[in-house]
């Protein structure tokens, strides 16, 4: 029996920043939600791409939407990439600011998530 741990199952979600106020938001069935816990997850590339295409068709609502990887830690969704965890929570040095102040099981799971991977959705390194 192999000792190699199973690779985590990865899902995709869509995220971006709201144009008007810059708030980090997550796609859920055609609407934009502020809590990562509300993100809609896709288990196949086609539906993820379709959702992203719909998101990109809203240039006056959302800025530069992209796909992120999500896994489940003990049944709770958590972004895989470190940067996306910071986006889902807020600045780590100010636990009193940002989305993390809402608390809850998913926020806790993100705070305690370990390991990371290169952000699948990293866009241009320099914002020109």
């Amino acid at each position, binding site marked *: 029996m192999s000792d190699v741990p199973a690779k985590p199952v990865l899902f995709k979600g869509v995220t971006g*920043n709201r*144009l*008007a*106020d*810059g*708030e*980090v938001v997550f796609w859920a069935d055609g609407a934009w939600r502020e809590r990562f816990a509300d993100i809609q997850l896709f288990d196949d590339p086609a539906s993820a791409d379709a959702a992203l295409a719909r998101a990109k068709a809203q*240039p*006056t609502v959302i*800025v*530069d939407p992209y796909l992120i990887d999500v896994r489940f830690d003990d049944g709770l969704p958590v972004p895989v*990439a*470190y*940067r996306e965890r*910071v*986006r889902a929570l*807020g*600045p*780590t*040095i*100010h636990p009193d*600011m*940002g989305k993390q102040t809402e608390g809850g099981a998913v926020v806790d799971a993100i705070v305690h998530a370990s*390991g*990371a*991977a*290169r952000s699948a959705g990293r866009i241009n*390194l*320099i*914002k*020109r």
Partner: protein
Amino acid sequence: MYRYDALDAEMLADRTAEFRTQVGRRVAGELTEEQFKPLRLMNGLYLQLHAYMLRIAIPYGTLTSRKLHRLAHISRVYSRGYGHFTTRCNLQLHWIKLKDTPDILDLLAEVGLHSIQTSGNCIRNITADPYAGANAEEVDDPRVWSETIRQWSTFHPEFSFLPRKFKIAVGAAPDDRTAARIYDIGLKLRRNREGQLGFEVMVGGGLGRTPYLAPTIREFLPTKDLLSYLAAILRVYNRYGRRDNIWKARIKILVASLGAEQFARQVEAEWKTMTQSGEAARIDAPEAEVARIRRAFGTTPFKDLPAVSEAFEAAKAADPAFARFVRHNVLPHKVPGYAIVTISLKAPGEVPGDCSSDQMDAIADLAERYSFDEARNHFEQNLVLPHVALDDLPAVYAELERIGLATPNIGLATDIIACPGLDYCTLANARAIPIAQDIARRFADPAVAEEVGELRIKISGCINACGQHHVGHIGILGVDKKGEEFYQLTLGGSGLEDARLGEILGPALPGPRVAEAVDVLVDTYMKERAEGERFVDTFRRIGLAPFKAAVYAEAH
């Protein structure tokens, strides 16, 4: 303090009206994000990890109480009650909304502040020596020239779409307090043998992925030729700087690839043609205008005070904490009876460079009452009260203590420069602030920090080097190693008059080991140091090997 005249004010008003229109076009879908991004960047508005970030210019780092109060108000109402002073003498506000930004710009414009060209591929905020007007060794007030350049470079039609950003610093003293050699153009005021005033012109410095120190391309440029000569440099850059690769687009790459001499020749040739055709004469600021700018700065009505203040001496003798504050945070002033006071924004455990709205208000009051209504910000992310009477120093210190800004650590191990890093910034690979906090906590005891002595630690969360890690005595660069935060350490850099780039210590260390490694480096220094040697001096004497051995032995 340069007072904006009606024309300056109208420029700001027209700018904010224009930006309001541009925001409207973006929201209505008439501009794509790609078309809008450079426009909002040219107003200093970034989209970052959590929200927009607005970078407000503090021209040549000079503030009045009125401006500080306004910044306090804006950070309170439109951000979360704080701001971050940067290594480029700007103020960054996080948590900003696009839809509020035109209103914020209007509020800034009312007090002569703005965010014009604080980002984008254009000429950015012109900095100056933070001790201008107070420093005995300056040959002239560099801010006069920073303001002259600011006006010429604002909305410059030929140079607003450069290959990349462009930064200019102006200093006026032999001791370089502007980090001129890491600027695209560093200008150093000096006199020639005939006593004429002019500039040493250095071009092609910069950090980031390929750091360079700027070579001098002109030893002496008479002040009357300043703007046309800058135009010649910018034109050569605009035409021949690389546009195919953003990592190779700064002027430092052009200067390095041509070589300083060839680059200088091209600039001189262009400038010569400009002078012969009459173009230079149209560009250069007339003497009367420079004189007007100089007058608009006003003269500080210093009192005739004795060089020694008995109240000050008594306070030092009575209070060792005050005496320590004076040792580290107070510098001599060119006028007898006065001093330059640095307010540290680096209390151990706090976010380096951050200042709360309440603290801004309190500093504004201090400036108004004790420093002829003037404050400065320093590229090492601290604030300065440039003209404090020695008699008033005890009262200033007491007030600073009350607001938590009396840390006696300028230039010491806890006076750390750190960029916002992955806690805020979309470009970052790793966090910088928690690393700074970890290190600062280890040296929090002021006696310990004083014993260690001058140690300039600089931390960047990514290769863009906003924390200027290449020029730290200890530099720390955040890298992404398989998705985890790792940090590469360098030793022996400096951004001041002994400018040089740091040497890589060894393989990158994981985040939790960094503060410990800094401890080991300091221990090694303390063991090896000779009389009077700072950390960086010992390093330059004994080299990398002992430090490397100590850190990497410890890591196992």
